[in-house]
C-alpha cells in the first residue's frame, strides 16, 4: 500500500462514511433490534440500512452500541 493511499485513508476517516446513514435519533430507535440481530447472527446490517455507516461515523452511538452488546453478553453468562 502506498504512502499516499495510507494518507488518504486517514483523511477518509475524518470525512466519515460515504453512504447514506441514519441520524443519532434513528440509530437509537433501532439500537436494541440491531444488537439482538447481531447477537443472534442474523443479517443485522441488511435489515437496518444506514446503521453500520452511522456506527462508523459516530463514535458516541458506536460506544452505546458496543455497551449494549457487552451487557447482553454479560447477562447471558450470568
Amino acid at each position, binding site marked *: 500500500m502506498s504512502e499516499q493511499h*495510507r*494518507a488518504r485513508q*486517514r483523511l477518509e476517516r475524518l*470525512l466519515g462514511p460515504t453512504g447514506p446513514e441514519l*441520524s443519532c435519533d434513528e440509530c437509537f*430507535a433501532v439500537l436494541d433490534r440491531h444488537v439482538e440481530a447481531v447477537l443472534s447472527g442474523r443479517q443485522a446490517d441488511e*435489515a437496518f440500512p444506514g446503521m453500520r455507516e452511522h456506527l462508523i*461515523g459516530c463514535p458516541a452511538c458506536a460506544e452505546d452500541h458496543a455497551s449494549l452488546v457487552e451487557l447482553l453478553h454479560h447477562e447471558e453468562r450470568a
Partner: protein
Amino acid sequence: MVDPSRAAAEADAPVALDVESRHWLGALRGNGAARDDAILRLHELMVRAARFEIHRRTRGVSDLAAEEADILALETADDAVVAVLARLDDFRGESRFTTWAYKFALLGAGVRLRRRAWRGREVPLDHNDWPLLADTGASPAEEAETYALLGELRTAVEEVLTPHQREVFVTLIGHGVPIDVLAERLSTTRSALYKTLHDARRKLRAHLVEAGFIPLAGEGADR
C-alpha cells in the same frame, strides 16, 4: 439521512411479544400495587445496567470513587425509568423488553460519564490548532503525504463550511471532544450536532474530490 421507514422495514409484520416482555408491559401499563412493583423492578434493572456501564467505562481508571459511582448509577436509573415509562408506546416487541429498556440506561450513563470527564475543562473551539490530527505512528513519507492532505482539508474547512459547521467539525474531529459534551455546551442535542457534522463532512468531501485530492467514493455519496 436514510428514510427511517426503511430501517423499520423489519417491523412491518406484527410481532408476538415474548412472555417476559408481555408481563413487563402488562404490569407497567396497569395500576395499583402491581404497577408500583414493576416500576421498582424496572428501577433495579436500570441501576444494574448503569452500574455495568460505569464499571465498564471506568475500568482501570480510579478517579471515580465508589460513592460517586453509586450516585451516578442512581441518577441514571431514575432518568431511565422516567424515559422508559414516557416512551412505553414506542416498544413494539421487536426486541426483548429488557434489551429495549437497557438502552436508555446505557445512553444515560454514557452521556454522564463523557460529560463528567470534561467537567471543568474548556472545550476548545479554536480552529487553528488541531491536536488530534498531529497523529503519530506513521512513516515520515506517510506523514508528508498526510500533512499535504490535511493542509487541503484545513483550507477546505476555512473556505466551504459555515461558521457553525466549522466550529462543530473542528471541535469534534480536530480536537476529539465527545459529541455529548459539545451538545451540552451549545445547548443542543447529539442528533442535531451530528447532522451538522454530517453536512460538513459531505461538503468537505465534495470539495476535496472536486479538487482531485481524494477519489470519488462509491455511488450514494451525493446525499
